[in-house]
């Protein structure tokens, strides 16, 4: 029995050490909370900055659309039929009449066809992609981290 007591006494930590460990453990909680709050603040700030940039870009897009519409209309006014006719006449041109035209057979000639205003290679704008980090919960985040990664076509 004495031997046992001696062994316990040998491995038992000093009481002040135990107290400090308890205090340390107790303080760990606020430290962890501070860390979580710090990370949360960091993510929130980044999300806010990104969101603000989106808002600014949206406003710029709207402003540019207005400018484009104005410029298109101004350009159309400058090349309107009446303006173009006046400009051509002032430069000494006149509308071609039947007698002014000589027809020449041009092989492979393709006559003027109606306009095609399709946008080349147009695709529907994709929905905005938001990183999961901005939307998922901590629980989801940790679960995703723990989940084993899979690879397609895993042939040995």
């Amino acid at each position, binding site marked *: 029995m004495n031997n046992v007591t001696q062994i316990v006494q040998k491995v038992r930590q000093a*009481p*002040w050490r135990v*107290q*400090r460990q308890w*205090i340390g453990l*107790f*303080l760990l*909680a*606020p430290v962890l*909370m501070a860390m979580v709050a710090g990370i949360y603040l960091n993510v*929130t700030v980044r*999300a*806010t*900055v*990104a*969101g*603000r940039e*989106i*808002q600014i870009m*949206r406003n710029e897009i*709207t*402003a540019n*659309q*207005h*400018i484009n*519409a*104005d410029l*298109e*209309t101004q*350009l*159309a*006014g400058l*090349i*309107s*039929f*009446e303006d173009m*006719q006046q400009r051509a006449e002032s430069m000494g041109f006149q509308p*071609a*009449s*039947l007698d002014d*035209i000589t*027809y020449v*057979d041009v092989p492979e000639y393709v*006559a*003027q066809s*109606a*306009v*095609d*205003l*399709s*946008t080349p290679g*147009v695709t*529907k704008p994709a929905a*905005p992609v*938001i990183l999961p980090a*901005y939307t998922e919960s901590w629980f989801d985040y940790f679960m995703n981290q723990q989940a084993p990664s899979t690879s397609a076509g895993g042939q040995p």
Partner: protein
Amino acid sequence: MKRQPHTGRYLIAAFLLAALGIGILVQIVRIQNSPEVAGVINQGTQIWKDFFPPRGEIYDRHGSLLAGNKTVYEIGLDLTVKPDMPTVLLALQMSGIDLDEVNYRISLAPANAEYIILDDFISVDKAEKLMALQKAAHGDPTGKNLDAVYFKAHYARSYPENDLASNVLGFVTEDNHGYMGIEEKYDNILAGIPVRMLVPADPRRATEYPTIPPGETIILTIDREIQASVENILDQALVTTGASSGTIVVMDPRTGEILAMSSTPRMNLNDYQSISTVFSGETPFNRAISEAYEPGSVAKILTMAGALDSGAVQPGTVFFDTGSILVGGFRIVNWDGGAWGYQDMTGCLANSLNVCLAWVSSTQMGSDSFYSYMQRFGLGHATGIDLAQETTGRLKLPGDSDWYPVELGTNAFGQGVSVTPIQMVMAASAIANDGQMVYPHVLYAQIVDGKQINTKTQIVGTPISANTAHTLTEMLANGLETESSAALIPGYRIAGKTGTAQIPLPGGGYDQNDVNATFIGWGPVDDPRFIVYVWLEKPQSNKAASVVAAPIFKQVIEKLVVLMDIPPDAVRLQMIGR
């Protein structure tokens, strides 16, 4: 065991820190779950926002912009900051903004209003002047600044070609609604829908902003160059003939695409408020689709088409014209009151003999066959053209309370039946297009998600056979050549028919002074590329369509063959032969 000297202090510090942490957590949970606090937060983070999507643009078939958008401003005033009104009004005046309108709007504002709209649809120039004044007055220590003035940009319709094709386009009012023409017919796809909604001000929720789709852009079948030429010719025609109004329609008979459509009067679409003065009384906005009239002898081509197709007559069938014929107890005479003796069917058409055509309809065809063909040609029904305000005209049928047997004779030469120009053009397209009648339309294509979707040609019926169509076209072409019509141009073979029609009076009977002069024709005969309809209302220089309408037709096709790159027949056939 001896207690460490600072243990008590550590414990107190730990307890306080723990209590603080727990307190913060409790407070966070309380705030987040408090409905009252959540309401306050949402009130501050959600704002009303207006979304003004641009209206779809309208182009002609070669990509010239006919209707676009321009930026205008709504000028508003925040009353919660107690703005200095004399300063605001002075600035508005200096910017060229109409103060009468502003004062009127202020007078309508309720006493407790927090925000009022001072004026709307202000041009960019004026708004920029006001913005410059606002910038200069910003931070004025006396409080005489313009910080309470707000600018909201939005779109307004703009027509760079002013009155070109105005009868076809229609116009858009300040409430973004289309009226008349294309703007009304396709209002639902052209107009983006303005939306006013609560959106989160929180930047982290920026992706929750709605995507407001713009109006769809459309392309018309109208050719700007042809349209302008036709309008110019029509304007000159009214001056030279003294006609009260006029209409010209140009269509591709193979596809039904309207290349040009003009009627008088026209208006500058950028000044749509002038509509009540330009179109006073019951003046139709577009006579080509909205005004039905008795077309006269141009309808003879439909009678003859039906008669040939049914086998009632052949081109060589001979009729002895005594100068009059009795139909339903009434005597019908020729336009000149004369007797033309022996005539084959080509002669009947070339000389436009009423007696002959009344004989064809009443004696050779009979009412069942005649009216069956008239209905097959679409008379009495709207064509369905994609323009607002189309009217149907009237084809009275046996059995109708106001139908009389004599009308079987008069309808054969286009009296007692009313049609719109577009109805006649559609009906005649069957003769020009191998018996197939095409649906007339103005929409060439629409742009959906960046892709162009073209309108397909629609055949609305085959009232006559291809053989009948070719035979009649030959007869009409020969008729024009025989009489050396003023409608012909050298090098091109054209088929066509004049029509000089009496105008019915509201109380019954016909106007003895004025007539309607019409010409319908198509060409080149062997491969028609255009069908042209000319209608002059009450010409004064001469009443005969062959004198007033045929030369207008000639002017139009002289332009058409140049603008559409149609070589003379000989050159074209030579090219095809190679």
